[in-house]
């Protein structure tokens, strides 16, 4: 119990109180607090347990670098595992729980792992759990899996909403510290469109930690807010830098609330397409490895500063500051401001220019000393001469120097460069249109960073084509610093951590090196260093330094693992946005959609479309409905919405030539007013698509293609027209949505249509099979095609889609006396299998024209897509699987789609597969289509359709694929 709220200071609203709970205990905080600052204010010190050894952990940082202070936040369906308390804004009623402990945070029995620490170092798993073999699956792995993970996911639908938003700007500024504010202002003053992103809810970055800079911060923000083309986005973390200057970000629009407001999203996924980018992402303070550097009470020096000045809380009472650089002296001043009982500043260097000011406040400054151990209440200081001193401290502030946040620059493609003076990496030459400014490139101090930012912002605006704007005031110049002296590790007895969340120690790094895992990527993977949710921000470079020392090479040669997205973990729901569930992909509806709904159709997705599968009547099951619909067609008349067929209007003097080349069969010989079936091949000779094409005029055709291939066929035609035969004079466009198309099928289809069609003689003589004509129905101009998919006498009627329902209803009214039934895809499928038409299951990208029984259609010469490669020896092999029909010899037996055909039940060699099955209404038994090796030669043979998955084997006879009316008499009736 050592933290406390200070009587004054901080960007918090002391007037208002917020209650919250942690591990079931109730506390109070203020608006402006994070969960971390509020817990510190309430004296809470132990907040989590580490992943592997279950060591007790406290709050280390005040931001996204936090490795230890992770909680399960919120409750019920809003539960959110692994949230960093240092990033969770406090709100009324907040509920959080600690993670990865059993039975409780205070008493975690899994901490016995720590005792086995000597055995379970890096790479332990790979060397063990192998004996006996069977134990891995039954014993070891289940144990490991149970111990895995931190927080729990809740298997509930997320009640919150997310959305995407795409923005464009001339200059994007990432980060709103001194450099970012100045960059945005300089760019904005030029008139450029500027977007300024800040991950925090307050703008200012490091400026927030020094009350002396608050005036400039406020004044600059006010200036930016007055610029109409500057947009400021707080709570917006840029997570990735992608190609062509596109950056991705998450705006935490509602995370600071108990629940997002009505009509508001929880998070917004934003993309920015920027002409120029200024990366003012600041720097992260790094750890020093020493025994006990993970104990509750250890905190980064900059974080301690933030807790005092940003949040008005003191994270302890007696403090030691351990540093190798000047930045921690500001923390010393802050601790003094916060009236700590005792402050010892242990500087590993020999001197600092800042020392006198600090000493003047009564702070005990010691040079040339290191922290050799921290036990949670006492710090062991060790001087160069070996003398040691034990100092009681409930707070140990650590600063090993600052690493520029180079993640985004690195992701943009820029190589990193070693910066000797700050002992860290900075961005090298830009690859994309970006520049770093301020601490992000090693320019520290608000005065220096603001100057650097202002220059970067102006340069970015100029690069984006703007003239520089008026100059503006900048903060005072910074005092010169005493240089940092790199200090990575204090070697002493005990575990010294380089990755607190994954429990990676300096010894683990050295072990990895001894075992040959000396490359930084190997060491990372072997030890799991840097792979936790803090992504190694605190200790990444420290681990690399330990490895460098072990290898005996300079740190810059060892380098860092690749920086990949994300700069900070990103909520998956935000990236998904609204495109989930029924919004996952666009849905297409035909113009008859409402009619289908009104008439009880069972609608199902079919590719992008919603289509009626069948129209159940009360008391009917699926098959009842399908049979009734199919019988209506076979016995009288039915009507089916086939509007989804792709339709392409093709015109031009070379239209017929174009079709001759595009289709395997000829179209130039097609008479005007007639339609013809066509088969399209891919260039590799495999069947691509089929459909009927009608000739409407000498230079005018209407193609149809399958629903699934409507898009690909148009694209295919565009490829050949634009790139292969640009000399052909053809014009074509999709008219799929222009026309509602309905199949009117059955022996009484003519009688039905004759009642409503005006202006067209439908008699068999005047309008034979494959005829095409124009007419009107209910006064609406329509096209009539005499084509059939069902195998019956049938027509297709095309009406302008806005009038589709009028025409459809007129036909239904005319067919009422014949018992006309609307039929769905299921009945259509049943009938096409009876008829033996190949469809999607047969045109599956693996079959040739010959496989489908259409080999004779393919032109033997001339320029035809797919002709040449379709003749390759193995594709031309006549014993390839061919389309056949099959029927069980026992009519009571059922067939399964996907069954294989074998010569006898026990045979392992598949001769082919069953592609489509149905229950035939004409034959009153299951029938199927199959692709069968030597299919043509096997007609009449007895084979077995086996489905080991179902444990079924059915004797079948091989037939023609045309189960009904092989002579094709009905369609010509």
């Amino acid at each position, binding site marked *: 119990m050592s933290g406390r709220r200070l009587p004054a200071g901080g960007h918090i609203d002391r007037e208002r109180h917020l209650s919250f709970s942690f591990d079931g205990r109730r506390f109070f905080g203020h608006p402006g607090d994070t969960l971390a600052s509020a817990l510190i204010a309430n004296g809470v010190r132990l907040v989590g347990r580490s992943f592997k050894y279950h060591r007790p952990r406290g709050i280390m940082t005040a931001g996204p670098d936090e490795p230890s202070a992770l909680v399960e936040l919120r409750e019920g369906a809003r539960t959110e*595992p*692994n949230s960093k308390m240092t990033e969770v804004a406090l709100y009324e009623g907040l509920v959080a729980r600690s993670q990865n402990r059993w039975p409780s945070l205070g008493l975690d029995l899994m901490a016995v792992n720590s005792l086995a620490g*000597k055995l379970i170092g890096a790479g332990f*798993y*790979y*060397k*063990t759990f*192998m004996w006996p073999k069977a134990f891995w*699956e039954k014993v070891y792995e289940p144990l*490991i*899996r149970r111990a895995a*993970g*931190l927080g729990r996911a*809740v*298997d*509930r*639908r*997320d009640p919150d909403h997310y959305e995407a938003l795409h923005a464009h700007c001339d200059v994007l500024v990432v980060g709103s510290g001194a450099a970012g504010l100045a960059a945005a202002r300089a760019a904005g003053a030029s008139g450029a469109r500027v977007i300024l992103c800040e991950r925090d809810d307050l703008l200012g970055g490091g400026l927030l930690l020094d009350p002396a800079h608050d005036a400039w911060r406020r004044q600059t923000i006010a200036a930016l807010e007055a610029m109409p083309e500057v947009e400021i986005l707080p709570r917006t973390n840029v997570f990735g830098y992608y190609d062509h200057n596109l950056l991705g970000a998450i705006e935490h629009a509602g995370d600071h609330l108990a629940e997002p407001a009505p009509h508001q999203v929880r998070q917004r996924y934003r993309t920015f397409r920027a002409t120029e980018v200024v990366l003012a992402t600041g720097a992260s303070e790094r750890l020093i490895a020493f025994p006990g550097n993970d104990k509750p009470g250890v905190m980064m020096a900059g974080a301690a500063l933030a807790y005092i000045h940003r949040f008005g809380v003191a994270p302890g009472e007696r403090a030691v500051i351990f540093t190798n650089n000047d930045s921690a002296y500001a923390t010393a001043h802050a601790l003094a401001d916060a009236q700590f009982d005792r402050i010892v500043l242990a500087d590993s260097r020999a001197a600092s220019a800042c020392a006198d000011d600090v000493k003047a406040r009564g702070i005990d400054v010691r040079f040339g000393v290191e922290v050799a151990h921290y036990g949670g209440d006492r710090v062991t200081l060790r001087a160069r001469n070996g003398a040691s001193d034990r100092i009681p401290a409930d707070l140990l502030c650590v600063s090993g120097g600052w690493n520029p946040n180079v993640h985004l620059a690195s992701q943009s493609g820029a190589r990193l460069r070693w910066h000797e003076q700050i002992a860290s990496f900075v961005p090298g030459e830009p690859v994309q249109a970006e520049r770093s400014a301020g601490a992000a490139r090693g320019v520290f101090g608000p005065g220096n960073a603001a100057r650097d930012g202002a220059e970067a912002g102006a340069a970015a605006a100029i690069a984006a084509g703007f003239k520089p704007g008026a100059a503006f005031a900048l903060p005072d110049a910074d005092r010169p610093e005493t240089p940092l002296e790199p200090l990575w590790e204090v070697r002493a007895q005990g575990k010294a951590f380089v990755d607190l969340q994954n429990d990676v120690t300096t010894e683990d790094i050295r072990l990895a090196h001894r075992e*040959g895992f000396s490359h930084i990527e*190997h060491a990372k*993977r072997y030890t799991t260093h840097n*792979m936790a949710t803090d992504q190694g921000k605190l200790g990444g470079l420290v681990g690399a330094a330990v490895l460098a020392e072990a290898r005996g090479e300079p740190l810059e040669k060892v380098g860092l693992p690749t920086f990949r*997205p*994300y700069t900070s973990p990103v*909520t*998956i*729901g935000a*990236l*998904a*946005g609204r*495109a*989930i*569930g029924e919004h*996952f992909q666009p*849905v297409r509806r035909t113009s008859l959609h409402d009619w289908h709904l009104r008439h009880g159709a069972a609608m*199902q997705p079919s590719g992008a479309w919603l289509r009626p599968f069948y129209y159940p009547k009360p008391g009917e099951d699926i098959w009842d409905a399908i049979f009734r619909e199919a019988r209506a067609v076979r016995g009288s008349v039915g009507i089916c919405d086939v509007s989804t067929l792709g339709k392409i209007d093709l015109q031009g003097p070379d239209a017929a030539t174009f079709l001759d080349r595009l289709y395997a069969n000829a179209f130039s010989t097609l008479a005007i007013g007639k339609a013809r079936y066509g088969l399209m091949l891919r260039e*590799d*000779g*495999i069947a691509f698509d089929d459909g009927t094409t009608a000739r409407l005029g000498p230079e005018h055709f209407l193609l149809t293609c399958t629903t699934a291939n409507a898009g690909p066929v148009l694209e295919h035609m565009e490829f050949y027209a634009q790139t292969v035969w640009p000399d052909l004079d053809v014009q074509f466009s999709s008219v799929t949505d222009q026309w509602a198309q309905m199949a009117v099928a059955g022996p009484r289809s003519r009688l039905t249509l004759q009642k409503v069609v005006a202006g067209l003689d439908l008699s068999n003589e005047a309008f034979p099979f494959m005829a095409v004509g124009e007419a009107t129905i209910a006064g609406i101009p329509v096209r009539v095609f005499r084509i059939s998919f069902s195998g019956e006498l049938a027509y297709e009627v095309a009406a302008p889609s806005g009038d589709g329902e009028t025409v459809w209803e007129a036909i239904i009214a005319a067919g009422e006396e014949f018992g006309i039934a609307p039929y769905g895809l299921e009945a259509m499928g049943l009938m096409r299998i009876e008829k033996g038409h190949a469809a*999607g*299951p047969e045109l*599956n*990208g*693996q079959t040739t024209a010959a496989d489908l029984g259409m080999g004779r259609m393919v032109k033997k010469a001339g320029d035809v897509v797919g002709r040449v490669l379709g003749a*390759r020896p*193995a*594709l031309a092999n006549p014993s390839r699987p061919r389309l056949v029909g099959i029927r069980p010899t026992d009519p009571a037996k059922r067939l*399964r*789609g*996907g*069954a*294989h055909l*074998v010569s006898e039940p026990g045979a*392992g060699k*598949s001769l082919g*597969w069953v592609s489509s099955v149905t229950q035939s209404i004409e034959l009153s038994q299951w029938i199927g289509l199959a692709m069968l090796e030597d299919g043509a030669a096997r007609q009449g043979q007895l084979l077995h359709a*086996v489905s*080991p*998955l*179902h444990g079924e084997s059915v004797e079948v006879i091989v037939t023609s694929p045309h189960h009904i009316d092989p002579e094709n008499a009905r369609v010509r009736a």
Partner: protein
Amino acid sequence: MPARPEPIADRYSAWRLLKEGLGGNKGWKPAWRKPEPKPHYDVIIVGGGGHGLATAHYLASVHGITNVAVIEKGPIGLGNGGRNTTIVRSNYGLPSNTRFYEWSLKLWEGLEQDLNYNVMMSQRGVVNLFHTDAQRDVAVRRGNSMRLQGVDAELLDRDGVARIAPFLALDNPLFPVYGGLLQARGGTARHDAVIWGFARAADRRGVDIIEHCEVTGIRREGGRVTGVETTRGFIGAGKVGVAVAGNTTRLADMAGLRLPVETHLLQAFVTEAIKPLIDCVVTFGVGHFYISQSDKGGLVFGGDLDGYNSYSQRGNLPLVEHLMAAGVSMIPAFSRLRVLRQWAGVMDMTMDSSPFICKTPIDGLYFNGGWCYGGFKATPGSGWCFAHTIAKDEPHAFNADLTIERFREGRLIDERGAGPNPWAQ
């Protein structure tokens, strides 16, 4: 099964773990040596990824050929072997593939004992979802083909899927789950460990693993390979096997071969670690999404190619947006989790989505490549078959169909019928 390997020196055992642990872990030796290249080897394997290292291991352990070097331009295992989604399965529908991948899966099942290294092979099942009758029939065709070839497969109905994957939104409006095809023997393995295990086992049998040595040319005399030019000088060899996913075309260029290969990007993702949620591997094929949970707790997931030629290992956002939407649509609990890291591998895509392990027109030169995105699960099988092909100068029955000539002959092994369009496979 492979010939029983000779016991290797420096074995891991419970006793040694205890001894080393108490001794401060000072006694462990490097998992593989860092030797200087010798002037000549019987066999040089170009490529120190999983396939190359496995080839070396099986050359040594099955064929007794130990004068072998594996040459790698960087550190071993940082190509696709170190950047995949760790899935292991053999649920292919075309016999040429099933035969090969099933042999690979059998090798996986004995790999820990063979290598004396825990690669954490975890057979918790792989289920492919389907959402329509037509998709079910395609899955049934594949499952039955597997069963006829002696490979395990089970058809699950909706309730069956719900039992093994209760976290799925079965009533997804656009993709209601009808059922799934389960291969219970499928699962995952720890990808890096596979690399390290093969490297260690090959090293202990005398194979030289030479890192930071880039091949710059393939030397030939009279139609026969004689060695490789490298950044560390010429190294002679009786035979050269190339297994360089992501660089297959470049090596083929050096040998004057032209291949039906395009190189594409595939992204993968991992979430923050959470307590066990997903036990098996689930693939939501029509949504182009698959997922599993690692032993450490991260959800590992991925989807389709980014869709354009690339060697960059830089993924982009369109795929990310689609994938996350597919994931949340199918797994509601996914929404509030956070994705921690993203990476991308470069895939050598062939024009029919199946690989090749074969001889070339040049004597003594062998190629292994075109793994598309199926390379990880193939690792032991690929190494085993490649070793056989190199040692015997002829393919084994398991890889006999996996030639480059098949494209010219029209004997395509096109599982999905996507045709010569790698971006669509």
